[in-house]
């Protein structure tokens, strides 16, 4: 089933009262198990599209179906639940809480979703080992390198075993070596755990490692 949008648009009203169309007539289909890149220049509307797909924001026009169910007019509480259970997010600046430990960051989605913390701790331990961060559970996130932080963000995104991973410039703050490692991780996650992955990027190298590239320009999808 996957993600389907039809004529999706997002218009905001500026402070001077003028409307600004950030997205216009975006119609895409992302099949389950695909790894898709959304590529475009800065200001093209990539992040806005990703936010709408991840129910972090709402479109002002068009329709959006997630696994066959329309979600465009979903209630806020239900949208929050979906964010917690259906999506995992990996952001450019990692979106981690620097004062907290690696483990506390990873378990945050479970805490917010009311899940089983005991089982989650076990799963977190397993994922930390798989991602080469076994000894990092008690460390404060603020003391980690960029690559380590992004791996922690990935583990957090996977802790509730969501079917979809949404990443917004996941390699933007990393050096080339860490960026390459990150993309290896994405490929491994998609292959071994059958996740559907959507990566927003302006980096052609990152986009090239995906199954498909959707190109966005000035809020419109290029054919």
């Amino acid at each position, binding site marked *: 089933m996957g993600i389907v949008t039809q004529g999706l648009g997002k218009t905001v009203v500026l402070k001077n009262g003028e409307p600004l169309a950030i997205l216009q007539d975006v119609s895409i289909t992302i099949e389950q198990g695909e790894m898709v890149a959304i590529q475009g220049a800065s200001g093209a509307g990539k992040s806005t599209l990703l936010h709408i797909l991840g129910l972090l924001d709402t479109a002002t026009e068009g329709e959006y179906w997630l696994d066959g169910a329309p979600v465009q007019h979903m209630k806020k509480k239900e949208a*929050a639940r979906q*964010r917690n259970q259906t999506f995992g997010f990996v952001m450019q*600046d990692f979106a*981690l809480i620097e004062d*907290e430990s690696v483990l506390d960051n990873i378990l945050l989605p479970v805490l*917010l979703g009311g899940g089983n913390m005991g089982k989650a701790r076990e799963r977190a331990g397993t994922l930390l080992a798989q991602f080469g961060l076994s000894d990092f559970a008690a460390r404060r996130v603020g003391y980690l390198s960029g690559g380590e932080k992004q791996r922690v963000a990935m583990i957090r995104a996977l802790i509730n075993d969501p079917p979809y991973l949404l990443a917004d410039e996941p390699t933007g703050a990393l050096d080339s070596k860490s960026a390459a490692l990150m993309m290896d991780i994405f490929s491994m996650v998609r292959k071994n755990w059958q996740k559907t992955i959507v990566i927003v990027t302006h980096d052609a190298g990152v986009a090239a490692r995906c199954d498909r590239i959707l190109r966005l320009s000035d809020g419109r999808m290029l054919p």
Partner: protein
Amino acid sequence: MAADLYLAWNLIVKKYKSQALLVLQTVLALLLLMFLLGRIEFLRWNFESANAFTTQDSYFFMPYHFKPASFDIMDTLAKVYPSLSVENGDIRSLTLWEDGQTPLSALGYNDVILQHCRLPLQEGSWFEDALQNGEVPAISVTGAYAVGDVLSCTQNDGTPLTLRIIGRLDRHAQVLAFKTTGSANAISIEDFLTRPNCDLIVPLASARFASVALTGDDAQPDDGLLASAQILQIPQDELTPQEVAERLRSYGTCVPLTTMVENFRADMTLEMTTYGVLNLIFTVLTLVGLGGNNAMQNMMNERQFVIYYMLGAPQKRVVRIEVLRSGLLLGISFLFFVLLSLFIPSLYPADTHLLTGRVYLQSVGYLILIYLLSSGLFLVRLGRANLMEAYQKEWRE
């Protein structure tokens, strides 16, 4: 809800240094607010206590301290106004012995005082009618006795007395007692209103009902400056207050009780207004200091709230977590304040401050208001704004 409390608590613990400063500011604000509000409450009760005095045609007269040995006050007053009704107010400090063993301190008021000063009661009635079986009516001051209780007592010389409690004094009322300080030329009701320091009020040598007779050590009046004062009854349609003052000018200070009450009320009103203004200034300063710090905490926490939203918390829940954080901080601060006030009882002297339940509630109410004012906009923004837009602008770029 448990998760939200945990997250709110975590927000406090992880940034404990800045939160500790906020708690300290809040405790100091509470201490000062209670000081100001406690003083206003004390003054308000003073203001109300003037209602105790019946003032119609009554004058408070105090002869000058230095007078010739031949001076006779009654002769003198009779010359001033032949039909003058002069009543001596008499107040004595007494010790009674309950069951012959437990000492009870009592204030004895004679009929003049009982008639002209009706103190506010929480329960029961003031001294009205004689009781049966020679029982002496008494007012419980501390509330240790209930209306209807009967006490078997003895005086210092062993004379037995049976007291029946007919009323309980209001918790915050002041009592009439001649103080040993003050100026002979400046008479105010404040000079003889004081915080209670006795167990009972009893009638003294009363012609109206069974009372405590003066015996032994109690026979001597208090050696206070006002102990020789009199209350004069002169109908105003016979002599005006100005005429009375003029006639008695050579012998002592004479003030209509009405004037004393009005002056007292005016003084209390002025002082209440002053403290009210101070309270307002202090509230504004607290808003700037405490509110500013709180607003800074909000800004520091905003990114974390956006992360909560991203990971599955609806915006309303994010607002709730912030409200819980503020509530926990207020609760911790109040706890510190209560501990402090328990261990430092002299913080608010009972003879200048009155801390009622209302004062506590007002103080906490003020603080909640300050927190709301400093956090209000933030909470509204958290609940309504596009958080991801803010995230993009402030932390991503």
